């Protein structure tokens, strides 16, 4: 464990212990242990179907876990719906397929959370939405509907929508996997800027260069388990497990 990591150990935002999740006979998560500290960018990598997206979806209880424990800011995820909603408010989530609301403009999409969930008055919600769109560089698109935006722009609006709730942690579920290669960069640079501001982020990604450059901690998944975790330098330059080496060489890493 790196020394910076040990120093940050006092403030754990997320703590996963022995997390299991089954779909019928299939063990999607088979005992996952992981810590996410305040201000850290933790990247989850590994082959498709290895459980990394499932872990993310269990983090804000879009999926319920079958065993183990997930703690958010020191307490276990509640089971009761209203308490769960209060937790979800403090976690922003960005989806692979954007999931912007197609009947609302970019501005309305971003204002929707503050308006409906936080019960902000219209002016306050819009003010906040304008600020968030500016942050992702899309002030000029506030009146556009999602169908009029490129994939990269849609994903940036989706990031703004999550940020408008002023979350304590951002969960990214393969945010660039559905994008054209030429728009991946704009989304990654927004995410990088967010990381530089100190946002705590859990990122499921196939972008190895992002994980290496921006990640503070990388967890390699295989068959529902974390086979190796550590700082990116270790994972990408001196992986200790055969499985990590296999996975990275499969992706042509190191090039």
């Amino acid at each position: 464990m790196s020394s910076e990591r040990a120093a940050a150990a006092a403030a754990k935002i997320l703590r996963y212990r022995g997390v299991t999740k089954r779909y019928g006979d299939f063990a999607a998560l088979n005992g996952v242990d992981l810590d996410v500290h305040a201000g850290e960018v933790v990247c989850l990598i590994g082959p498709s179907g290895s459980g990394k997206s499932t872990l993310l979806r269990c983090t804000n209880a879009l999926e319920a876990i079958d065993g183990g424990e997930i703690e958010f800011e020191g307490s276990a995820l509640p089971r009761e719906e209203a308490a769960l909603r209060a937790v979800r408010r403090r976690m922003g989530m960005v989806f692979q397929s954007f999931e912007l609301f197609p009947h609302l403009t970019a501005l309305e999409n971003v204002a929707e959370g503050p308006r409906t969930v936080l019960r902000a008055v219209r002016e306050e919600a819009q003010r906040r939405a304008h600020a968030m769109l500016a942050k992702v560089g899309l002030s000029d698109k506030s009146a556009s509907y999602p169908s009029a935006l490129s994939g990269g722009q849609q994903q940036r609006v989706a990031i703004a929508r999550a940020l408008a709730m002023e979350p304590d942690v951002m969960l990214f579920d393969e945010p660039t996997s559905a994008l054209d290669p030429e728009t991946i960069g704009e989304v990654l640079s927004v995410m990088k800027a967010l990381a530089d501001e100190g946002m705590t982020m859990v990122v499921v990604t196939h972008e190895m260069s992002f994980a290496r450059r921006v990640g503070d901690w990388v967890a390699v998944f295989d068959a529902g388990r974390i086979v190796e975790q550590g700082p990116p330098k270790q994972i990408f330059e001196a992986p200790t497990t055969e499985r990590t080496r296999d996975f990275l060489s499969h992706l042509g890493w190191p090039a």
Partner: protein
Amino acid sequence: MTFDWSVVADHRAALVAATGTTILLTIATMAIAVPCGIVVAAVRLYAWPPLRAIAAAYVELFRNLPLILVVYWAFYVLPIATGLGLSPFATGLAALALNVTAYNAETFRAGLGSIRRGQLEAAMALGMSRRQALRRVILPQAVRRILPVLASTWVSLFKDTSLVSVIAVGELAYVAMQIRAQTFRVLEMLTAMAVIYWLLGYPQAKLVDWIQRRYAVTE
């Protein structure tokens, strides 16, 4: 055979009033059947399973009975069942609303079911309750998607209101048939009826087509 169209002009006041009743009956039926259809659809999709079964049974019952039978049933059974002396208009309205609610419930169920799961998840990830997600995210999209179906239901309903003439509701079909019986001008009255129904029905259909184009959502 000679035609005497003066019979239409002579009874224009009665025909206009009866047309007003037909329009009122259509609007009142939809005003009941749209919100009730949404509720029944939501119950069928999301409620506690025994309630789902009740909603499903209701839909399958009324969707598969001839409307005219429901009208007669409402006329003879409702007063006994409720102990209320309902007017013919209220009875006809109840029968139409029971029938159209069942159709609308199926339409809304299809519409709500067609919105992909990720939309609900995105709303819930923001901290919305299921009810808020339904109202703010799912329903507005579903309504736009099913508007053409609601439109054709509306136009069908406008014509089907004529069926409540069998229980003496003073709408267009009933009044026209009464005039026919008094004057024996059969072809004139049937033609006048056809013209009135068509002239009113066609622009409604066109209007709804326009609404659909106006509010279409592209993804």
